[in-house]
């Protein structure tokens, strides 16, 4: 540095950083952090998800200050939040719709990873941590849905916990254990509340690990090739901070639209009826973000097998890095997978549609075909296409592809090795 004297602030920062290398870490990981220059807007969804987690924790903590976790009082306490607490309606709608937004962001993030092969070597653990986050999110969302203690809360809790009754021999004992009673009741509500408050912080910890794993090799990119030098990257700040901020503003517009103009669009009207253990609502449907799993569960005519496949559809994600045998990451250079990927998207949407409808006639057939395809996609098409497909030539470098605007300077060898081990 040319300056002979450091300012007072810099000296304080230096003093701290010498003892707690925290400032330096931020500098390295959030400021200089070399990021592939060709990231598209699909790479915004990771940071958006992280911000959404914070939004959920903040709104949740403030709601918890007003909520009463007791079967006799929970419903009324939520209505008190909606009616009497200053801005309570806004915090509650933000939290309620926030769950949907969080899942939407994470699902887009996940499908982006599937399209561009972000789970492939050396990012397998990064991917696995992401799947763990998804599972924790599903658990948290489910328990949160129970807290307002409306009809859907009560019956969702009953149905989901009863999934464990499919386990042979000890199933019913496990369910009774989960309930802390002979039906879903106040003990269930209390423990769900405690866990619903705890799990987001577990998620936060796993997100931290997810980021550590990410920063080990840096972001994947739309070309799926490794960065080879400084010409391929840009510092995270200001290039990607501003890009993420712009994405955040656009996302907040959509989110706000739901909070302020369609707050109950994604919810079920039955959940505004207080829980009644003596009567199940006419149509039990999960929240939209769980519909595909719900569809798989219902498509299998055997209780135990249905439960196994519904859980399996998520746990399958853990082995995706090893199911994919393709030597290249990005679907851009995979002429067959590029199309097959969209079959999966359609398949999952079809499962969602099946889950939203009563299991009759066509819905059942579509559900069974879509369930079958889901597993075929990952267990058969993934390894087979990877082996048979002939990838298109990869560009020599990110910089070459971006700055010279083409794939003309091809590396040549199809199926060039992914990375130096």
């Amino acid at each position, binding site marked *: *540095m040319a300056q002979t004297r450091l300012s007072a602030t810099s000296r304080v920062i230096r003093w701290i950083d010498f003892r707690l290398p925290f400032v330096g870490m931020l*500098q*390295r990981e959030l*400021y*200089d952090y070399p990021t592939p220059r060709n990231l598209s807007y699909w790479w915004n969804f990771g940071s958006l998800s992280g911000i959404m987690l914070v939004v959920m924790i*903040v709104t949740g903590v*403030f709601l918890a*200050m*007003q909520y009463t976790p007791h079967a006799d009082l929970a419903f009324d306490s939520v209505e*008190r939040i909606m*009616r*009497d*607490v*200053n*801005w*309570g309606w*806004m*915090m509650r709608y933000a939290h309620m719709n926030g769950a949907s937004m969080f899942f939407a962001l994470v699902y887009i993030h996940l499908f982006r990873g599937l399209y561009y092969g972000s789970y492939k070597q050396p990012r397998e653990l990064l991917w696995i941590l992401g799947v763990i986050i998804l599972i924790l999110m599903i658990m948290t969302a489910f328990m949160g849905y129970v807290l307002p203690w409306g009809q859907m809360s009560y019956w969702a809790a009953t149905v989901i916990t009863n999934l464990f009754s499919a386990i042979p021999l000890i199933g019913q004992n496990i369910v009774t254990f989960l309930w802390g009673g002979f039906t879903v009741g106040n003990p269930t509500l209390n423990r769900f509340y405690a866990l619903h408050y705890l799990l987001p912080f577990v998620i936060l910890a796993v997100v931290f690990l997810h980021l550590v794993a990410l920063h080990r090799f840096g972001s994947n990119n739309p070309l799926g090739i490794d960065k080879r030098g400084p010409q391929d990257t840009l*510092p995270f*700040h*200001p290039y990607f901070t*501003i890009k993420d*901020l712009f994405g955040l503003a656009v996302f907040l517009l959509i989110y706000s639209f739901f909070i302020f103009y369609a707050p109950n669009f994604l919810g079920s009207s039955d959940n505004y009826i207080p829980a009644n253990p003596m009567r199940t609502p006419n149509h039990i449907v999960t929240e939209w973000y769980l519909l595909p799993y719900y569809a798989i569960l219902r498509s299998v005519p055997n209780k135990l097998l249905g439960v196994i496949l519904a859980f399996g559809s998520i746990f399958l994600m853990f082995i995706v890095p090893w199911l994919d045998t393709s030597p290249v990451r990005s679907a851009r250079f995979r002429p067959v997978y590029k199309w097959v990927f969209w079959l999966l998207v359609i398949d999952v949407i079809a499962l969602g549609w099946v889950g939203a409808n009563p299991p009759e006639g066509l819905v059942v057939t579509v559900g069974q075909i879509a369930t079958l395809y889901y597993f075929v996609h990952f267990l058969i098409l993934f390894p087979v296409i990877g082996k048979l497909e002939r990838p298109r030539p990869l560009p020599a470098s990110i910089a070459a592809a971006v700055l010279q605007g083409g794939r003309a300077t091809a590396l040549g060898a199809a199926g060039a090795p992914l990375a130096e081990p």
Partner: protein
Amino acid sequence: MADLAQQDVSGAHTGETRRDFLILTATAIGAVGVAATIWPFIASLNPARDTLALATTEVDLAPVQLGQRLTVAWRGKPVFIDHRTPQEIKAAEDVNISDLRDPQADSARVKKPEWLVIVGVCTHLGCIPLGQKTGDDRGPYGGWFCPCHGSIYDTSGRIRQGPAPANLVVPPYEFTADTTIKIG
């Protein structure tokens, strides 16, 4: 290192102020947005509408005998009602006001001299002073004595000794009939 990154970006546009202005605007609007978002969360911790609505309590004073003290709840706090004897009234009125820590005439603290209505919360750190029950320590001035840190109040609820800075608060109240008051 930060300076390097900064130079890398701004160096290409030396002398150009529009970018700086734009970045400044973006930073400002972001800060405004964050501040505006924080506000509802802070506001939510203020008393809610239902809490604010429960603000009046009616008390029938007829059963309270001369010299008796009654405690009623108002906004969840105890309100002391003292049916004062002529001696107590005299003791309260005879005090030289300029000697008091929180100078206030007894007449300014009552609507009818025989009825003293005060919030029974010590102005030091919020304990409830003794003196409502017969047999309680009322302190040397015959008023109230706070067991937490030894504040002593007289028969008008004024602070006479101890750490409390101010007199016991007189709540807003009115006589709706001869022996009925409405607090709040």
